[in-house]
């Protein structure tokens, strides 16, 4: 089976999820202030091993650093916590003062895991690094020219550049170079001068449309930046070719999350409750591929089939048969997607969490899906 549904806790919408480096434990937040860790048992079920309870308001994002095994969480309570697992297995938290006066919306560890970036509704991105002497996380702010809430961030492989999507309909690439902790970076396709908070590139979603940016993603080499917006579009900017941006307006509902699963392949998922494949050709043009599964409404034929029920439904709902169950595995919008197995060059398994509280694992290398991916060679 290419899509397998996993039960991690109650059927309450999952806001975000992150995997441990061995992929045996998952951290999820069910739309509340708690972060729950579930470990996979032999036999396939998931047991709750820990609850990280320190935030006062809803946890908006979680990220788990694979090498240093640190978890960072950020919340609507304007705080972020870094969690470190002790020798006894218990998780110890450290408060990070972000110095923002609005909710923190998204957080990501940098590739070398010595920094993390937090987006917020205060129109500030906080870049946090560990001050070794004082053993304290220091936050530096990127403000200009952000004009509204930052919804999503993604790191360039060089550990310096950061892409941020915002509700002012723009995608921007900033430098987060912190001279105290890292050597001066060499030039990339995005520019040569990289002082802290320098705006390297800015792309607007609005002349050709509009809509908040929901997710941004750098490809493996960091030469291309892809994003999805609320105007049901997906776009890719190619730095080497002079920051050329190619946008595709789709026929589907807007996407909320995005992953590179190959050098020319993107996977996007959102309000249609199923991940959709996209292909990017050498010129940067985006074309739509197949959905990972076919949907369509499923008519519940069991109880409703009797004549009495049909009339009852017609009276109560205005239609004879109850068709509110979706034909896709997820029953609600997918808001978080992670590579479970593989990397941005070749992703073999991908996990999604959604508003239906379900975790679904998609096996991209298995029969049916592999066929669809292979057919996507344009």
């Amino acid at each position, binding site marked *: 089976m290419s899509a397998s549904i996993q039960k991690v806790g109650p059927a309450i919408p999952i806001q975000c999820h992150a995997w441990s480096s061995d992929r045996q434990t998952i951290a999820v937040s069910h739309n509340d202030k708690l972060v729950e860790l579930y470990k996979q048992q032999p036999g396939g079920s998931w047991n709750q091993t820990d609850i990280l309870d320190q935030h006062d308001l809803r946890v908006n994002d979680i990220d788990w650093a694979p090498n240093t095994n640190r978890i960072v969480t950020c919340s609507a309570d304007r705080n972020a916590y870094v969690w470190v697992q002790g020798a006894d297995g218990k998780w110890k938290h450290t408060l990070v003062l972000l110095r923002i006066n609005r909710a923190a919306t998204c957080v990501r560890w940098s590739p070398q895991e010595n920094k993390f970036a937090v987006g917020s509704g205060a129109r500030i991105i906080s870049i946090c690094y560990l001050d070794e002497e004082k053993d304290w996380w220091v936050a530096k702010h990127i403000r200009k020219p952000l004009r509204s809430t930052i919804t999503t961030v993604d790191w360039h492989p060089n550990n310096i550049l950061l892409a941020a999507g915002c509700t002012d309909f723009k995608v921007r690439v900033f430098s987060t170079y912190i001279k105290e902790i890292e050597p001066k970076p060499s030039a990339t396709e995005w520019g040569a001068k990289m002082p802290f908070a320098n705006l390297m590139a800015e792309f607007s979603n609005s*002349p050709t449309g509009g809509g908040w940016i929901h997710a941004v993603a750098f490809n493996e080499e960091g030469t291309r930046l892809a994003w999805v917006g609320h*105007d*049901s579009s997906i776009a890719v900017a190619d730095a080497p070719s002079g920051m050329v941006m190619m946008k595709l307006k789709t026929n589907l*509902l807007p996407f909320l999350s995005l992953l590179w699963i190959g050098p020319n392949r993107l996977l996007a998922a959102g309000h249609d409750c199923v991940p959709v494949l996209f292909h990017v050709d050498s010129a940067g043009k985006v074309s739509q591929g197949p959905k990972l599964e076919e949907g369509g409404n499923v008519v519940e034929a069991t109880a409703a089939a009797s004549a009495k029920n049909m009339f009852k439904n017609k009276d109560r709902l205005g239609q004879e048969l109850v068709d509110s169950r979706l034909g896709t595995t997820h029953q609600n919008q997918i808001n978080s997607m992670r590579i479970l197995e593989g990397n941005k060059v070749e992703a073999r398994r991908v996990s999604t969490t959604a508003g239906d509280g379900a975790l679904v694992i998609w096996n991209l290398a298995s029969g049916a899906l592999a066929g669809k991916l292979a057919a996507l060679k344009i």
Partner: protein
Amino acid sequence: QIYKMAKNTNSTAFRRIDVDKYSEDNYKEDVDNETVTAGPSENEVMSLISQNKQLDALKYVLANSPLGNKNQAVRDAALTLALRVMLSFKTSQIEEAVKQLDYEQRDILMKYIYRGFEVPNEGSSAQLLVWHDKVFNHSGVGSIVRVLTDKKKV
């Protein structure tokens, strides 16, 4: 004893201040300095319709739609023309016409359809519903989402 309240609490004018005007943090929309079209010419449209070239008239109003034009009168005039063109089609011709459009034109057309729903008259909505159905079959919910999110309104 009669307590004399401070004089300024007698007036309730403070309730009518627009607080947002005084906030310095307000989000200001990008000022778009692009030149926008002035809208389709009525003569051109009427002449195309009278020559039974409805599809050309449709392509003409879509190509010359004053998207994002700040002058409401210009956009309203263009809407009236667009509706006249759409209603001049025979119901059976609509599907073929929609097939001849590209995806950008269909997005603009969907915006006009929804604007047309806002000003119904004499059975216009019935015809617009047919238009809506045919455009939807090609452009899906995405075109409807863009009616809501696009910055440049018709």
